[in-house]
């Protein structure tokens, strides 16, 4: 066991993957000499050189498009987008090209690239640097989607992403980089695409991912003191989506809250709610409750920012209302 930050786990994953596979390289803005806007790639250029930590001009569409071409040509690029908010710039290359190439071309070739980026609130970074846009990605057939919430997962999910035959969008959470946890990375990870039950309780199931896992766990601890026991499921990957783990937790309990930092409408929570309602209808005592971002842009005001996305308090308060 060792203490490690989420940031260092990501760096170690890149380091280990690059050491094992010379086809892996990182391409993006400030990934080399600067070491990444959030420091994830800091120092890697010293070991692997500027060709494998390739600094680019500020050209997000071409960064992703170059990664698509390099993946088709046989390498395994890790394209970095500094903020997920910039994904709009790249949507053609990501959703029209990377996501569809295997299918359009009749299975001739895949695009084994990883698009690493980070999103979410917590740094008062404003409306264009704080969003949770995973629903845009989850809505597109052909893309895998990973959202690690723990230090252990930051390492192992990135390692697993770098072994996938298809394009993976890997969204880190900016508020988690400095989070330190005790981890034993030698413990083998769950199979790719599996959710993990972080806490078991008989009264309520909370289904969530990324930073909201921590809010859910904090809420669950607070609720436990009041005699309410919650199960918390960390989805870890949104594509593949491990519905069986959700089903097994939901059916005996029948009360479900889904928590997502992204905006409520047509979001990940909406999809999860619809799936649970369809698949587990006979087991539900109450409607599936969505706890998600408000349908507003994110403000730079610390107070408004915090109030526009779910918090541990909101999760706990919602649970109490559901069980009242």
């Amino acid at each position, binding site marked *: 066991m060792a203490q490690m930050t989420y940031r260092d786990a990501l760096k170690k994953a890149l380091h280990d993957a690059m050491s094992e596979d010379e086809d892996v390289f990182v391409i993006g803005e400030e990934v080399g000499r600067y070491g990444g806007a959030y420091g994830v790639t800091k120092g890697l250029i010293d070991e692997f050189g500027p060709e494998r930590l390739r600094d680019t001009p500020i050209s997000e569409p071409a960064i992703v498009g*170059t990664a698509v071409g390099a993946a088709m040509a046989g390498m395994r690029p890790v394209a970095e987008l500094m903020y997920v908010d910039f994904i709009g710039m790249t949507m053609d290359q990501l959703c029209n090209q990377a996501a569809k190439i295997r299918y359009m071309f009749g299975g001739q070739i895949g695009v084994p690239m990883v698009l690493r980026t980070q999103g979410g609130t917590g740094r008062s970074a404003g409306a264009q640097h704080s969003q949770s846009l995973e629903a845009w990605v989850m809505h597109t057939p052909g893309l895998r989607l990973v959202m690690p919430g723990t230090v252990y997962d930051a390492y192992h999910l990135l390692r697993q992403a770098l072994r996938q*035959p298809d394009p993976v969008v890997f969204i880190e959470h900016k508020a988690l980089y400095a989070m330190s946890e005790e981890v034993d990375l030698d413990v083998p990870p769950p199979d790719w695409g599996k959710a993990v039950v972080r806490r078991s309780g008989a009264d309520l199931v909370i289904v969530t991912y990324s930073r909201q896992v921590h809010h859910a766990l904090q809420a669950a601890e607070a609720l436990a003191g009041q005699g309410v026991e919650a199960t918390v499921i960390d989805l870890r990957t949104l594509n593949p989506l491990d519905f069986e783990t959700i089903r097994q937790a939901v059916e005996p309990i029948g009360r479900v809250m889904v928590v997502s930092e992204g905006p409520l409408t047509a979001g990940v929570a909406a999809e999860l709610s619809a799936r649970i309602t369809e698949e587990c209808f006979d087991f539900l005592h109450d409607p599936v409750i969505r706890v998600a971002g408000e349908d507003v842009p994110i403000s730079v005001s610390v107070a408004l920012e915090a109030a526009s996305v779910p918090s541990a308090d909101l999760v706990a308060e919602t649970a109490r209302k559901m069980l009242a």
Partner: protein
Amino acid sequence: MGERDPKTTEGSNTDLVGLYSQMRRVRTFEERVGELFVRGLSAGSMLHLSIGEESAAVGVCAAMKDGDTFTTHHRGHGIFLARGADPERMMAEIAGKQTGYCHGKGGSMHIADMGLGHLGANAIVGGGIPAVVGAALVAQQRKTGAVSVAFFGDGAMQQGILYESMNMAALWNLPAVFVCINNQYGMGTRIDQATRATALHERAIAFGLNGETVDGLDVIAVRDAAQRIVDAARGGTPGFLAIDCYRFFGHARKDKSPYRDADEEEEGRRKDPVAFARAALVEAGHDEAELDAIDAAAVAEMDATIDFADRSEEPPLSSMFRDVFAVGEPEPEPLADRIDRVLARD
């Protein structure tokens, strides 16, 4: 990349007969594509013919080598043919048939073949350009000696992705080539209605690439310009080539070109690279019968493509769920299966 097809233009570099023959094949193929559409056999409603642009496809491909890769725009049949594609499998793909290059899933605008280095046609204007930067980056790092060529139309000259891509190619000295087939029209908008900067190659030069514009009337001139640009790119100086030509027909098959007048079309169609090459061959002493035989061979070859496409099977419906992800990954659950499963809960 895979075995070289004997139909590729390679080896006919110095041979106008070979270039003429290739251009005639392209034109005849495109005429048959039009026929496929008229006869209702085409799956695609999106058919963009390259008639009038044959010298661009054939001239540039003559400067490329085995192992080179390329992407094309939506008007790319001729380029793929000139790189050695099997016209029967092409026509089958355009018709959406199982025997096509992409088993009917891609069609005219998404045809590809990794064996021939075709990294894909694209239905997004400019969408295929940055993949060439990636392929060139790999060629440079692995020292394969290959170049990667992006083919696109004048419409893409106003797309930002082109400049991001050219900038990176120049910055990193990549073996990349950007070929603009300037047929004067992006759909119904003439190039001078889209930009004041109509000397297109100057833009590439501004980014540090080699840049030329060549008249597409003469396939030999196109090939020679392409050879200069491609050879320099192979040596680490990326380049750009604009080829001036005229789109003989509408944007797509149903477009009757109301935005341009008959006089302009008549004038434009005089810039016929196929007729020009034929006249040059006659001038050089080739007899008409020899050239007629080339034409007849193209007709016979391309007639067969229609028959092949016509008698090929549709892809099985089960293939709909295949290749979203890699083989072996779970396939999406069909909608009807899910509905039945959900409603069968009692």
